[in-house]
């Protein structure tokens, strides 16, 4: 027979479990990740990918062995002037809606590269997300490196 005290803590544990369950179930599907190649001496590059979250979350950061600094950036054109900015507070993802990080929009910026990132390499990337309760969770991906020179087909081109 359970004492009142243990019963209460069991109840709390169940309650807590019930509340945290959705958080545990939270996932973000990452598709087609890629990192742009660099040449020796070039200190920064970007990772692009498609993200689909099953709950509203924010992409707030990342980690990678190839760069000490990772930031979430936005590229905007104001008239003909290109501007790149870090996104304060992270990039919001709507539940079930695919957000594409691509040239001309958002990217994960990899900064202070100690050496070149080359075609053929696969870059391990830990993406850090924050849920609506402020709890962080991570998703690991491996992004292949694509050449600096892009295929300038109609598909990949200037759809801004």
């Amino acid at each position, binding site marked *: 027979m359970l004492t009142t005290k243990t019963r209460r803590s069991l109840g709390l544990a169940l309650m807590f479990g019930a509340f945290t369950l959705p958080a545990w179930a939270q996932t973000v599907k990452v598709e087609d990740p890629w990192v*742009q*190649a660099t*040449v*020796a*001496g*070039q*200190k*920064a*590059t*970007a990772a692009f990918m498609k993200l689909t979250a099953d709950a509203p979350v924010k992409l707030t950061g990342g980690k990678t062995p190839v760069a000490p*600094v990772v*930031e979430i*950036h936005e*590229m905007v*054109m*104001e*008239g*003909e*002037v*290109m*501007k*790149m*900015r*870090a996104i304060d507070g992270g990039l919001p993802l709507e539940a079930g809606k695919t957000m594409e990080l691509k*040239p*001309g929009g958002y*990217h994960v*910026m990899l*900064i*202070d590269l100690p050496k070149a990132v080359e075609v053929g390499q696969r870059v391990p990337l830990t993406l850090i997300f924050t849920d609506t309760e402020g709890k962080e969770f991570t998703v690991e991906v491996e992004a292949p490196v694509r*050449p*600096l*020179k*892009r*295929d*300038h087909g*109609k598909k990949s*081109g*200037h759809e*801004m």
Partner: protein
Amino acid sequence: MTIRPGLRRCFLLALLPLMLLAACEQATTTASFHATEIRDASFGRELQLPDTEGRLRTLADFRGEVVAVYFGFLQCPDVCPTALSRAVAVKQLLGEDGKRFRVVFITVDPERDTPEVVRAYLDAFDPSFVGLVGSPEEVARTAKEFRVYYRKVPTGSSYTMDHTATTFVYNADGKLRLAVPHALSAEDFAADVRRLLAE
């Protein structure tokens, strides 16, 4: 009040540098080039900067070639590779005429972009692309001549460069003829270059 599309376009362009605004009025009448024609002879008159091998280059070096000038920087992960990839595509689309199409890249971040790194970077696109690396003063003077805007902006850990992403195109006689917007397709750009080569 109704606004004619042409006027509305001019109105939007008012947000852009003055040179584009001036060109806008004329663009509605000619509509022959996809890019914006430059009728103002007072800019882009000269170009004089050291290349990645340290040789001083001027427009006279490129007579007989259509020259596309782009200002950018190497830590630009997005717009600059897009513009240079488009330039590669334009050259390919031109086929045999591509030999008379010269791409010149001018860094607006000479503090970080050393000649060696700029050379390696351009080689990743096309070894025939010319890279110009001036002193900060030389770059400032050149940008002013093209009315190109650039500015250093701090980011979390370092800095980035805001910059005009327009490509400027000279005809084979060394006359500045076109301002090619960043969003123009490689196909339209190539068609314009073909017209310039026939001038």
